[in-house]
């Protein structure tokens, strides 16, 4: 975006700030060229009317970033959270951003918003020094005014200070942020900002965008993965009511009609013949193929001589774990609306990467990025999966051909089948340990179906346990379903194997599962979450299987530490998870209630892939692309969840959206063993009962 001054005060700063190398590396690997715009861009304005607006390139897909950023700005400016307006995800209005993933929003953008708000505060104080004739240290910035500390009557509102002004300030390198000990907003419980729009139906999602003259598209999808169109007869579809045009363009076949129902009906009247790809891998073939075929071996952790240590170990264990593919299945299937005006394009798309999609659209049509505006409205769930956003390209192509605004909206089946999946993985662990359960050798090899995105599988593969001789290797295996991002990427998958294996070591020696972790865990932050979660749970020391149905696992993701203890019951083929006690250390907590709600959500979501979610596929077809055949967690089986936040301001803020999902599968599998003596090494657990 171009930075432009407004009436009042604009605070500008660099856009592509503090991007950690792993994030940019992943983004490049996953999404191609990332052409960062380093700014400067406007991060915050205080209008001539005194209203504060924050601009950020992040998008809101449930994680509460609007809420968190408002708290950050409110803190530095002495305001209530609901006095701050937050503009997100509109490429014409907000600073360039790499995308909303990897729990970066609070960690980086949150800090930049604080710096912008602190700069605004300092500027307002300066203006007041002259107007009130008092030194800055005798003034406070509270409640939308700058006021004398000694005489509350000497006070000027932001709008009075900014009357007839048009000021632009750069965020200085050394801008002073409030100390955590002075916080009055951050770290406190506030109400989420945007719930009113959500409970009244006013919140606009990409499926809700309706433009004048808009046509409804229905795209013809292949009959199976890898199938190609051999012949197409559109004659019947063309005569269907309401059809505007049937487009066949460079592999894109779509019906454009006046209503969604007309488009669906005409789509169903298309007569297509397909040539199917031979040799599609089925769900049944996959574990064997992963054992046989892996490539792009990357060693993520290595020390000493693992083979020698294994041969010398007094105790050894070897086991293999399997996690199937799962679809993301957000509540809102993808949709996009595209509209051309001359050579300028506007696309409403509920994507996690509005700037990335802008680059892709500009490249597709050979136009400048500045001719493309991507607006990410509210997003009905994404969990990482909505970084890739095919309907944006389809809608833009169709709108150009039809010279009308066009809406492409996935059906549930299209969303499940033609989006991306969390990769499946086969993980083999060989461990060596002494009679007390102290690890002496650790050999971990994971093969994830990541195809050309091996970083998904690498995340969270490193062990936090102290072991002198170790080797952790992650490879990529064949990918019959398209791999993509999912909450925590492969971290939850790698943790399932490692944390179940750790439990197996404990059980083999008759050592308590919490105790064995503490014996091997040097990191004090890690030890603390385990101690807090188990104390809050009321963990009684006992070796598994105790019959009680309790289990524990720990996890580290995006710099945040977590531990979860669960209690379960088995009712026939159903595992009832009754209680989850979790502890999270995500450093300095901006928004405690937001962090807790993210933990609750990640745990509930994780219970789905733990207990019953798995993509079924055969002959190049997804067999359970409907909620009739794809079970997800429901309210009636939601456990009690207690979340302890144990982070302190001694550590910078790290993510809270992803860590909750990381230990849950292993904790439940370990509880199942504790309950039934049945050691299950494959997800989802209920299918193995």
């Amino acid at each position, binding site marked *: 975006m171009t930075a432009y001054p407004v009436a009042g005060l604009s605070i500008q700063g660099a856009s592509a700030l503090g991007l950690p190398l792993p994030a940019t590396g992943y983004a490049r690997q996953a999404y191609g060229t990332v052409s960062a715009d380093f700014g400067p861009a406007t991060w915050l304005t205080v209008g001539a009317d005194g209203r504060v607006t924050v601009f950020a390139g992040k998008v809101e897909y449930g994680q509460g970033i609007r809420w968190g950023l408002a708290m950050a700005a409110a803190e530095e400016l002495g305001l209530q959270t609901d006095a701050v307006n937050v503009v997100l995800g509109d490429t014409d209005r907000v600073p360039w951003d790499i995308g909303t993933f990897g729990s970066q929003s609070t960690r980086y953008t949150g800090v930049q918003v604080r710096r912008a708000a602190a700069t605004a505060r300092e500027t307002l104080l300066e203006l007041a020094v002259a107007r009130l004739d008092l030194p800055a240290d005798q003034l406070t910035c509270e409640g939308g005014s700058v006021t004398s500390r000694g005489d509350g009557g000497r006070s000027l509102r932001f709008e009075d200070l900014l009357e007839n002004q048009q000021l632009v300030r750069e965020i200085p390198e050394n801008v002073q942020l409030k100390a955590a000990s002075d916080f009055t907003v951050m770290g406190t419980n506030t109400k989420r900002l945007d719930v009113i729009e959500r409970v009244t*139906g006013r919140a606009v999602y990409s499926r809700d965008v309706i433009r004048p003259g808009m046509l409804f598209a229905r795209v013809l999808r292949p009959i199976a993965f890898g199938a190609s169109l051999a012949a197409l007869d559109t004659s019947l579809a063309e005569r269907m009511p309401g059809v505007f045009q049937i487009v066949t363009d460079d592999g894109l076949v779509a019906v454009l009609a006046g209503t969604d129902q007309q488009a669906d009906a005409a789509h169903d009247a298309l007569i297509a013949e397909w040539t199917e790809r031979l040799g599609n891998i089925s769900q049944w073939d996959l574990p064997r193929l992963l054992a046989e075929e892996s490539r792009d071996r990357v060693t993520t952790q290595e020390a000493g001589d693992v083979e020698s240590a294994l041969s010398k170990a007094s105790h050894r264990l070897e086991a293999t774990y399997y996690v199937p593919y799962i679809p993301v299945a957000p509540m809102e299937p993808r949709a996009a609306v595209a509209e051309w005006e001359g050579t300028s394009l506007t696309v409403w798309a509920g994507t996690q990467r509005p700037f990335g999609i802008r680059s892709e659209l500009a490249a597709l049509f050979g136009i400048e990025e500045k001719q493309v505006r991507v607006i990410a409205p509210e997003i009905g769930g994404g969990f990482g999966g909505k970084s890739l956003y095919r309907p944006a390209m389809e809608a833009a192509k169709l709108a150009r051909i039809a010279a009308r605004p066009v809406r492409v909206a996935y059906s549930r089946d299209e969303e499940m089948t033609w989006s991306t999946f969390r990769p499946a993985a086969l993980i083999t662990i060989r461990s060596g340990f002494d009679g007390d359960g102290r690890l002496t050798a650790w050999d971990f090899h994971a093969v994830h179906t990541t195809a050309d995105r091996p970083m998904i599988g690498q995340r969270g593969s490193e062990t936090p346990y102290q072991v002198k001789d170790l080797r952790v290797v992650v490879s990529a295996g064949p990918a019959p379903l398209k791999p993509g991002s999912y909450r925590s990427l492969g971290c939850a998958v790698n943790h399932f194997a490692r944390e179940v294996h750790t439990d197996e070591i404990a059980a083999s020696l008759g050592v308590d599962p919490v105790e064995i972790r503490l014996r091997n865990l040097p990191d004090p932050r890690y030890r603390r979450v385990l101690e807090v979660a188990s104390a809050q749970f009321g963990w009684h020391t006992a070796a598994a299987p105790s019959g009680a149905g309790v289990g524990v696992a720990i996890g580290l993701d995006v710099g945040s530490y977590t531990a979860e203890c669960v209690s379960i019951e088995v009712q026939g083929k159903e595992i009832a998870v009754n209680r989850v006690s979790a502890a999270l250390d995500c450093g300095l907590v901006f928004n405690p209630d937001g962090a807790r709600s993210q933990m609750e959500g990640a745990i509930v979501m994780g219970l789905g892939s733990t207990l019953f979610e798995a993509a079924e596929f055969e002959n190049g077809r997804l067999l359970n692309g409907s*909620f009739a055949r794809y079970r997800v967690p429901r309210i009636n089986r*939601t456990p009690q969840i207690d979340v302890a936040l144990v982070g302190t301001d001694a550590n910078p803020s790290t993510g809270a959206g992803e860590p909750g999902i990381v230990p849950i599968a292993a904790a439940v599998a370990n509880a199942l063993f504790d309950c039934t003596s049945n050691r299950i090494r494959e997800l989802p657990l209920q299918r193995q009962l």
Partner: protein
Amino acid sequence: MISLHVNGERRDARESRRNLLSYLRFDLGLTGTKYGCGEGLCGACTVLVDGQPLRACLATVGSVAGGHLTTIEGLASGDVLHPVQQAFVDLSAAQCGYCIPGFVMSAVALLARVPQPDSGQVREALSENMCRCGTYLRIERAVLRASGVSD
């Protein structure tokens, strides 16, 4: 011509076979009612017809001819939220929010039938609404709060 009442206003529809969800969203512009699955399994499209919850994605306009419909847009009286809506706001019971209109409508129907439900009744009544963000515990508490049962 079909007539029905939507949020207290009389509305007409030309085609009795028009899908009710599409009619509300695209013909009337009431986009608060959501599409999630098109099979009546996720509850995102729940509306009230003469006080009873209905999955709009499976209904036609003709099937509710003459009926009195309430959608999420019709619950509040001006700026005064319905107690269920207010309880969701008070407990921050929403993440992405896409499922929330459906949950609110299902909860309103429940409270009309059972004014002071226990936790089990809330869970049973809402078990056909899906939330992928996992906001269930807050939703449950919000419905109990709206019923006047302290949490």
